[in-house]
């Protein structure tokens, strides 16, 4: 019972135990493989980008080391772009927060009658691809678009003319695209709020409006701030909307300027890389700020155990709430969708549906075109196989980070989170640069597309699966071990069944994301590896609105059907 004599024994004993643990770790090689693969996938494009930002020449070409690219960041043109990027980001996020929170409050905190319908439609709008939305709004709001033809030319209301090719147009379509995201992030906090605070205010004599502004919203302020920052990040990362709406008007954001520098002459890969780094630094800083907000502990007013909240009575304002919600859905989902269907069914563009020549030729063309059909099969391979690979990698990463406290697991966690801070087009540029140098025969293959998509969306998988895995008490696995199960059996028989819903969820999320993804593929695709999003993009760039619309309609239908299917098949209530 004396503890003084055992000190040397402690030292040698613990060393021996570490050696032992290493020897006995069943998953040692799997862990090593996971770490190596994730590290290679994530660090390759980032390091290539950093390398490229210090080079004078394009990837593959002989060049020299230079700081010129970073000095160029301060040229008036790039500074202007940066200003526009921040302005669009802040303005869009502010509008999204207001509109999204109002919709969430109407749906979940009032006696609004159409909550279910709005929830469903906003869910559909969330999965509506941004480049398709932007295209539809070009058909509506371009100088020769339907809006201007009908209101300006036919009705003579010249002052109502709009031009979607503008800064305002970018913000408008961005808001339409991003509001569903705000709704989805605010829904949890608003529904999970402990009603006791509002009850206390009401008992203290505060009328409903005062309760809303003095208690409810202040309590949500940290969730609102977190949602605001996240919206800001996905806005400044957004590529398709500013590319389609901004480039014709020469209103550039960082993402589009990067694209222009790489795709159109005079090309400047070095400056593009430096811009990519600058953009990543901004998103990285924003993510850091958002983490600070969520980890500050001030979100704890949201307890998750809801005492029944009293719905706010809308009374005679019900019509206004209805108008607001369905107005948004009309602008963000229904009108663009109808417009695409209309455009896909007419021979050439005509603003007057009465005089249009209707045809199925665009759909027929799609199904008879070998390259388009190949982009379909490419998309299915990339989404189906890629998502499976991504989920597998996410599962392994989560297991090794959640189920271990070792330093090496913190490293893995950090690496796997990095892609959050790298916008898609920047990742694409990094991979382009990397595979121009690396002697791997990956350039121009679907594998490279899959690698870029999986890298970009790996955090989706680790957050979803890891989030559920931490809730599975470790003693459940330990109970299996003492019952005679090996570690591998414990994972297969206990852990996997218990996190199965999150694995399905992560697969669904990744599949959908891959299906819609364009920004990280736009710099990497070749004729043989085009995916549907790229095909639509190409048709639209050739001003072939009919084909672009027809393909968009088909892609959107596939997305909506897949969503409906998975929602139906998804095990709604796990036994727990």
């Amino acid at each position, binding site marked *: 019972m004396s503890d003084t004599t055992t000190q040397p024994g402690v030292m040698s004993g613990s060393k021996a135990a570490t050696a032992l643990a290493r020897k006995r770790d069943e998953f040692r090689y799997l862990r090593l493989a996971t770490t190596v693969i994730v590290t290679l996938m994530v660090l390759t494009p980032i390091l290539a980008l950093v390398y490229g930002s210090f080079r004078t020449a394009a990837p593959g070409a002989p060049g020299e080391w230079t700081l010129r690219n970073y000095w160029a960041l301060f040229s008036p043109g790039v500074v202007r772009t940066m200003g526009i990027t921040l302005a669009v980001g802040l303005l869009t996020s502010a509008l999204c927060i207001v509109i999204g929170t109002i919709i969430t409050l109407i749906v979940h905190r009032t006696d609004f009658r159409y909550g279910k319908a709005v929830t469903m439609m906003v869910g559909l709008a969330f999965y509506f691809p941004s480049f398709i939305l932007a295209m539809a709004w070009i058909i509506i709001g371009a100088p020769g678009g339907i809006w201007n033809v009908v209101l300006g030319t036919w009705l003579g209301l010249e002052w109502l003319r709009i031009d979607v090719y503008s800064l305002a147009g970018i913000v408008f379509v961005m808001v339409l695209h991003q509001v569903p995201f705000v709704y989805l992030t605010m829904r949890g906090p608003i529904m999970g709020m402990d009603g006791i605070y509002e009850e206390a205010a009401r008992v203290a004599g505060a009328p409903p409006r005062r309760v809303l502004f003095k208690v409810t919203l202040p309590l949500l302020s940290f969730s609102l701030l977190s949602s605001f920052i996240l919206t800001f990040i996905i806005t400044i990362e957004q590529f398709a909307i500013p590319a389609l709406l901004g480039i014709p008007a020469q209103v550039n954001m960082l993402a589009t300027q990067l694209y222009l520098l790489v795709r159109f002459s005079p090309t400047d890969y070095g400056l593009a890389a430096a811009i990519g780094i600058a953009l990543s630094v901004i998103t990285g800083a924003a993510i850091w700020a958002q983490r600070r907000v969520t980890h500050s502990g001030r979100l704890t007013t949201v307890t998750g155990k809801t005492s029944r909240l009293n719905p706010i009575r809308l009374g005679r304002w019900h019509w206004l709430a209805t108008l607001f919600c369905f107005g948004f859905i009309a602008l963000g989902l229904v009108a663009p969708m109808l417009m695409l269907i209309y455009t896909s069914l007419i021979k050439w563009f005509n603003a007057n549906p009465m005089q249009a020549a209707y045809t199925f030729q665009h759909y027929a063309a799609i199904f008879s075109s070998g390259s388009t059909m190949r982009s379909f099969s490419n998309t299915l391979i990339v989404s189906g196989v890629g998502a499976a690979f991504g989920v597998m990698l996410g599962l392994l990463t989560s297991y090794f980070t959640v189920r271990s406290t070792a330093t090496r697991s913190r490293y893995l966690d950090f690496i796997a989170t990095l892609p959050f801070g790298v916008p898609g087009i920047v990742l694409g540029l990094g991979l382009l640069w990397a595979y121009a140098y690396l002697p791997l025969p990956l350039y121009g293959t679907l594998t490279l597309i899959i690698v870029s998509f999986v890298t970009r969306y790996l955090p989706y998988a680790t957050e979803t699966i890891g989030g559920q895995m931490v809730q599975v008490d470790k003693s459940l696995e330990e109970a299996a071990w003492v019952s005679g199960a090996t570690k591998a059996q414990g994972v297969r028989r206990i852990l996997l*069944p218990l996190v199965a819903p999150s694995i399905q969820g992560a697969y669904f999320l990744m599949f959908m994301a891959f299906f819609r993804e364009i920004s990280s593929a736009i710099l990497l695709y070749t004729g043989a590896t085009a995916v549907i999003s790229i095909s639509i993009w190409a048709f639209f760039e050739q001003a072939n609105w009919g084909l672009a619309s027809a393909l968009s309609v088909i892609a959107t239908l596939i997305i909506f059907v897949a969503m409906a299917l998975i929602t139906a098949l998804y095990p709604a209530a796990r036994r727990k």
Partner: protein
Amino acid sequence: MSIQVQNLCKAYGALTVVPDVSFDVHEGEFISLLGPSGCGKTTTLRCIAGLEESSGGVIRIGDKVVSDPARGISVPSHGRDIGMVFQSYAIWPHMTVAENVAFPLRTRNAPKARIAEQVDRALSAVELAHLRDRYPSELSGGQQQRVALARAIVGRPSILLFDEPLSNLDAKLRESTRTEIRRIQKQLNVPSLYVTHDQEEALSMSDRVIVMDKGQIQQIGTPQELYRAPVNRFVADFVGKASFVDVVREGSGAWRTPDGTVLPGTLHSPEGTAHQLMLRPESLLLDPQHVASDNISVPGRVLSAQYLGAVTEYLVQALGGEVRVHSPIDLGTDQVVGLSFRSGDCRIVAR
């Protein structure tokens, strides 16, 4: 079968949680590891289960060495043939009661007929046969606890381990479950180690109790030994209620309290420089008439009273200190009383 722990040591980096612990659990014996939270009792249990890698020392289950880091031996949990009941029960929510209980047999590839038979037997032992097809979420806390027990015993393990299995149950259920655990353990006649911080649980269930504090074993003994003859102040205080009064040893060998009362030198005298007199509240007699008797008798004054039902717990100023006394008599505060006790009921402990 038995469990043998020799010089077990467990360190996390520079932090040594259990420096050096040795004890045996004999064939069929039920031993409790008792101590406050953070005393290393759970760590010790988890080392025996193989859920933690020990840093030093030897653990044997039966004749088999299952852990000896110095020789590079560490049998993983699934090779140790143990049954364990977890504090959180850890029954698997995606399996029915019967599937949960069958798991240890299935992982060991037992024949189907034997699985069915043994699952039936284990479930009837805990009286859960009628709930075999339910899912854990449909069971009460007590029923979940019994599923965990059935799962621990179904494979006829060589040893049984319990990690505070009753701490999530309400008081009534806890008492009946204690008896049940002990009954089943006796039937199986398997050495069992039971971790708890509840002294009542440890005293009522165990053949022997190991009291731990700060990673060290303080005393190993039968419940009676621990209660009546604690080796130090920690054990005396942790096991049961007790009052302590400072005493000093006189040249004659007798003990003297601060108020000058002299106790016979025949009392057990432990090592150490400072000593205290330990008195259990039920071994003191209160007499308002202040009548002397054969016992050691001292005057006292009631400071406060707490009515507990069967008895009232009084805090009495006496012997130059404060003493807790249980008595059925009703007294008021500030009342002067006589306090008497047999010298055989008091004990000197090191401070």
